Structure formats: structure tokens, C-alpha cells
């Protein structure tokens, strides 16, 4: 099915997210921070990215901004999935080229629907 790059520094959360995606038949590539995610994205481009915002080394916004500069990431759907709610961060997300903003805790059905819809 689809290849999803799931980025989050919390292992529990990655397990939950990956579990829900794999159950639906998707392939999940995991990364622990933005830097690792960028490397994986370039090495092996996914169909869609779901990333946390607050992460060590390189955060979600920086990651998306960097990915958009690469040919592999130019038109890739990239969703932020975060507990943040601040408007300035959402504004920033839009500026760096995020496809959408989802709030944790996530709704598995919604995630699956979006993966389906955006790829």
C-alpha cells in the first residue's frame, strides 16, 4: 500500500502510530527526530510524512522546511501531529509548507483516511 514516514521522539507514540498504519496494510518507516527523518526521506522517499513537532536535534518544523528544499520533498504531503495548539506555530507550519496540522491524541481512522486521501 502506501509508505508512511512516521517521525516522533517518543517510542510509545511511534508504536501506536505505526501499529495503526501497519494494521491497515501500510509500510511504516520510523525516525526519532527531524534529522534522522530527513536522512530517511532522502534515502528512501515515502508517500506521506507524519511528524511530531517538538523533537530533539531537529524539530518537525525545521524538518519540513528542510525537506521542502529537496526534490524528494517538494510536493510530498507532510502532516504535523502534535500536542501544540499555539496559533503562531500553526502559522509557522503553513509558512514552512506543512500539508496539515493534527492534534494528539490522534484518531486512527482519521489518520488512515488522510493517508488514503493525500497520496
Amino acid at each position, binding site marked *: 500500500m502506501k509508505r508512511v514516514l512516521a517521525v516522533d521522539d*517518543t*517510542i*510509545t*507514540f511511534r508504536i*501506536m502510530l505505526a*501499529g*495503526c498504519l501497519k494494521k491497515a496494510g501500510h509500510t511504516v518507516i520510523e525516525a526519532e527526530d527531524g534529522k534522522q527523518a530527513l536522512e530517511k526521506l532522502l534515502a528512501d522517499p515515502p508517500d506521506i510524512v507524519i511528524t511530531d513537532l*517538538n523533537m530533539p536535534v531537529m524539530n518537525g518544523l525545521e524538518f519540513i522546511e528542510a525537506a*521542502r528544499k529537496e526534490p524528494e520533498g*517538494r*510536493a*510530498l*504531503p*507532510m502532516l504535523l501531529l502534535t*500536542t501544540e*495548539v499555539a*496559533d503562531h506555530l*500553526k*502559522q509557522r507550519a*503553513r509558512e514552512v*509548507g*506543512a*500539508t*496539515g*496540522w*493534527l*492534534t494528539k*491524541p*490522534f*484518531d*486512527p*481512522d*482519521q489518520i488512515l*483516511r*488522510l493517508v*488514503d*486521501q*493525500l*497520496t
Partner: protein
Amino acid sequence: MDEMEEFLTIFFQECEERLGELADCLSQMVEGDFDAETLNAAFRAVHSVKGGAGAFGLDDLVEFTHVFETTMDALRSDKLEASDRVCQVLLRASDMMSALIEDAQGNGDGFDRTTADRIMGELAELAGVESPRPVPGDDAPAQQTSSKKKDEPAAEAAAAADAPLEAEGEPERDIVITLKPASDFMRAGHDPLKFVRALKRFGAVAVESFGDHPAVDAMEPLETPLSWKVTLSSDVAPTELESFLFMYTLAAEVVVDDPFAKAGADAAAAAPAEDVKDDEGDAAEAAQTAPAEAPQEPEAKASESDASEAEAPKPEAAKPAEPAPAKPAAKAKADEEGGSKSAPPKVAASKALRVELNRIDRLVNMVGEIVITQAVLAQNFSELEAHGDIQVTHAVEALSRQVRELQESVMAIRAQPVKAVFSRMPRVVRDLAASLNKDVRIVLSGEHTEVDTTVIEELSEPLTHMLRNSMDHGIEMPDARVEKGKPRTGTINLSAEHRGERVRILITDDGAGINRERVLSKAIEKGVVSPDATLSDEEIDMLIFHPGFSTAAQVTNVSGRGVGMDVVKKKVQALGGRVTVTSFPGEGTRFVITLPLTLAVLDGMTVGVGQERFVLPLGSIVEAVKLDEKSIDVLPGEVPVMRYRGEWLPMINLRQALNLETAQGSGELVVVVETENEGRVAIQVDELLGQRQVVLKSLETNFQRVDGVSGATILGDGRVALILDIPALQALSGGGAGAFGGSGAGAGQDMFF
């Protein structure tokens, strides 16, 4: 003495939730997902509405839902094969159910009986039974009458606006969606082609683009100067469409013209798209894409009325769905900000202020977040203390005190006496007694015990089911009772009491008790247990909570589809509680439900196992001690026990019980906890990380039920920690009989498999 009205209001809120669940299931089914869980959930949603409707004497609704339920039952038991047509009928039935509920609420001008009867006929035909109200000269596909009535409020508004009264082809209708991408639409990872392609699932019939084509040499591959107009001919629920379109609202202006959107706005009240809607409101705010003409409306709604100005007056109908006339300023404000469309506030404010639960929930959530932030602040500050300023120290301490007070006050808003559900029960018992020809009285006690509103709401359904069960299966016929030397009139005691951090609800009847022989043979017949299994009496009693299990000889209007006790168990578990049954043959049965007082906040102790963090409910902790190898012994069957102050306690090693792959830790600490039913248990961990208040997030609603875990929380540093459920954990590790018996195999969801 407007109690009855109040309960009705609660029931209707419940109905909306059930409708939402049903809609959810149906949309899964439409997409071809017919797994047992979905079908069961859909069945239960209908069944619950029927149950409540019965309690309030809403006969039309009872009749309709009974047929509906029969069809769903046929579907889940494979007597009826799933197909598109079946889905269509079910969708129509769900709409009709919604119309009937509205009618019962006194909203709208009633429903169309002919349509209801026709749908009932279709349902009955699918289920292979007789419809209670056969329609002569049935002409299935013609839906003119139905739509006319369903659109009643719309039609009214239209008439008021002096427009031609035209019935829309419902549920199939034309929806026009206009997408005007912002210049960075594609740079945000969107693609108009994918947009159109994805819309096809709803049945796109026409796509047109408009706008200026740039000259070929000036074309930017990632710019989209074009706008798109897609016309759907579809029966999609407005909410579904809305949640589909939500993703595009950040990077494009999306306008929907849906003639049927009004009905959606009502039915959607409890739909799962709610979160999405909230997000949408925020997103719209942040991105400033909401059309300026109607800034106080949530985006999608704004789009509708927006489109309506250009189109026809019909979508004006969205207006009557708005909250009642004299709305207080605060309410208008909240509408402006959040866009919560649920729970039609039909009851005028009197002495007390009625506030939508939504809003309190938001408050509770925010307070929860503040608690977390406060914890982080306090922690960071304590590390700086050496350089600390005495005034700042005082301020931080004051803050922590005030936050706690704030939290208590907020929780107090949500507390309600259980009376709200308890006093509905005599009616249930009375009606049921009459229809079963039994003589039963109910004795209530502890009605003033206060519990969180959410718990109260969720309690009514399991309680009703349990009462029914007791009356149908427990209490004997009057003559039989006299023969056994019991009073003619059976008695059911319903009581509530606080037990530490939890509330305990007891339902005791003086009936025949559980017929274990019959339960066991039925269970074997149904393949629930293997014929050669040896079960203890308690285990046999617990079988009645197994999904699909029923000993009733025939399906009655009352109970006996085996849905009841299964629902009870699921419901109670979802609330973080437990249900147990104790039967005394010949003397009666006692059900005990224990529930947490609140679903939102918990005083917890954070413990560490390797890299992982878990939370133990603070109230259950007796003591933490250093592990002494000499005090440990192993019982036959690899059950480790620990000597603790002269008694032997079953011991759980978290790393093993949860199969953690985290780095090996010291495992040098043992936390002794007290459980409600199983006495004390020793839990082996690596470290204690301190007490804190944690904000509970349900795993079940966001992920799935996990054995041994009652929920999750977000810690001060943003990490997720799971909250442990000790009795369930004990069952999992095989360290003793958990509340549901401990013989289950490993990580199985249920001991009975």
C-alpha cells in the same frame, strides 16, 4: 419536578452519541469493512436507543429500532449477506431513526409515517421477518415523500423566504464543491488531481476548472492558478464531506454547496468529526482562509451560507439549527471562538446555568494542561533553587496551590449525584415488570453519591441492561417465588457508595441466582468454552459477560440477545471500571460495578522501568520498599511471591508482565499496592520518579484497549506514560486471579477465548 424532562434531555444526548457511533460504523460498512466489531458496534448503537426509548415510552422509536436491530442482528450473525443495497437501506434507516428521535424531541414537524413504514418494510425484508406495519403498494426507490418530510425545517425556512418549495432527492443530491488553491497549495504537498480523484469515492460526476492559464513558458510547475469546481451526485453525510475537506482548508479556500447540509448539521452533533471540526475552526483562524463575510461561523458553515447567497435561499435552513433565541453573551462568544455545534440547547436557563459539556470539557482539558505546565515549572524551578529568590519561591508555591484549587473547582462543576440516573430506574423496572408479568420493586440507596458527569451519562445504559437482566433472568415468576417460600414481590437493591478514589455500585436481587449448569451448557454449545474445560463457579458466572452469549430461550423485546451484559462489561471497562458478579443459587445475584470518580484527573506515582515511564494510581499505593532477594519465593506454576510484613504477596515484574524491551534496570524497588478486590500486590520497578497529578487520556478512544493499562497521560516533559491497571495486570502476568479470573492465555483480550 422537571426531572423527567431532564432525563429525556440526557437520553436525547445519548441518542445523538449513538447516532454518531452508528454513522461511524455505517460509513465503515459502506467502504466495505464488515468486520464483526463494526457490526456489533452498529447493532449495539441501535439497541441502546431502543432500550432508552422503551424506558420513556417512545413507541414509534421502539418499534422502528426493533426492526432495525433485527436486521443488524441478521447481518452480524451472517444470516444476511452484506451488500451495497443493504448498506443503502441501513443508511436510510439510520436517517429515519434520527428523524424519529428528533420527532420525539419535539423538533421539526414530525416524521413521515409512510416512509418510516416503508423503510421498516425494507429492513424486515432483509432480515427475513414480517414488518409490523406492511405498506400496501410499496414503491421502494421513490423517496419523494420521505425527503419532503425530512427536509421539513428547510422547507419551512424556504417557504418563509418566499422560495419555491422543492423537495430534494434525498439522500442522493448534487453537491458543488469549489476549491480555490492558495499560491502555495502544491508546495504544501497537495495536488488538485489527487483532490479530485479522492472526491470520486463520493461519486464525482463533473469537474471543471476556471481561472487564467498562464503562458506555457511562464508556467510554474508548483503553482496552481486554476480553481476547481467538482459536482458530486452523492448521498454522503455532510459531516463526512466536511472532515474530508478539512485537510484542504489550510492551503485553499473551500466552498461547499450542499442542499442537504442542514440535516447534517443536526445529525452530526455527536459525530466523530467533531474533533476535526474544532481543529478546522482553529485552522481557519490561523490561516485566515475563512470567508470574511461570516467570521463568527465555523468555516464550513460559513461556506454554506456563503454559497447560499449566490444560489438559492434553501441553505438558509442552516440557521434554524442554531441555538435557541436569547443566547447569553458568553455563549455567543464561545460560538465565535470554537464552533461547537452539538447538543441543541432547547431548555431555557432557570436558576442554574446550563452549560454545554463540551465547554466544560475544554475547560477541564485546559486546566489539565496547566497542571502539567505547573509541574514542569516547579520542577525546573527546584533545580534552580540555589539561586532562587524568596519571592519567586513563594509565587511558585502559591501557583501550585491555586492550580490545585482551580482544578478541584472545575471538577466540582462536573460532579453530579448519581440520582440523575438512579431515579430513571424505577420506571424501567415498573414497565418491565408489567411486560414480564412479574412483581418487582426496586429500592434505591446512596443516590446522593456524587460522580463525574461523564460517568453518570455512561452509567445509564449499563444499569438499565443489568436491571433488565436481573428481572428477566433473575427474579422468578410470582407463583414460583411463593412456592420457594419467598415473598411474592421480588426486590432489587440499587445502591452507590464511595470507596476511596472510586465509586461502587451494587445491584442485588433476591431471585434465583445464575443457573450455572445452563450457562455452562449454553457456553459449550456456542463454542465459548471447550466441552472439557473445568471452570470454577466464579468463572462460570462471569461467562454471562461474554459477547454474543445469552441463555434466554427466545428473543424478547426485553433482553436475551446476549447484547446486554456484553455491553455492560465494555461500557464499564471503557470508563476505567470493573464489573463482577456473585451468584448465590436460589437466593439471588449481586453485581458490583466499581468506577473511578472522575475520568479526567488522577493523583499518580510515576515509576520507571528502563527507559519507560508508567503511572500507578497514588491512592492504591501502600508503601515502596527496597527489594530483598531473600524475601522472594516462587510458587508452583512460576508464580513469584514476596514476603511483606508477615504475609505473602503475589509479585509482578513489570518488565516481564508487559514484555518490555527496554534496557535492563536495577529492578531494586518494590511498590506495594492495594487493589479493591484482590488484596495487596507487589510490583517490581527500577525507580520511583515522584508524585504528580496526571491528566488521563483514554487509550481506547484513540488507539485500542490494552490489557493491564487503564489509560495514558502526558508527562511534564511531553512523553507519554501509560497508567497501570493493577488487577488486570495481575491477570496478565498470571500472578493470581484478576477481577475477570486469571486463566486467560497471555495477552489475550478476554479470558474466555
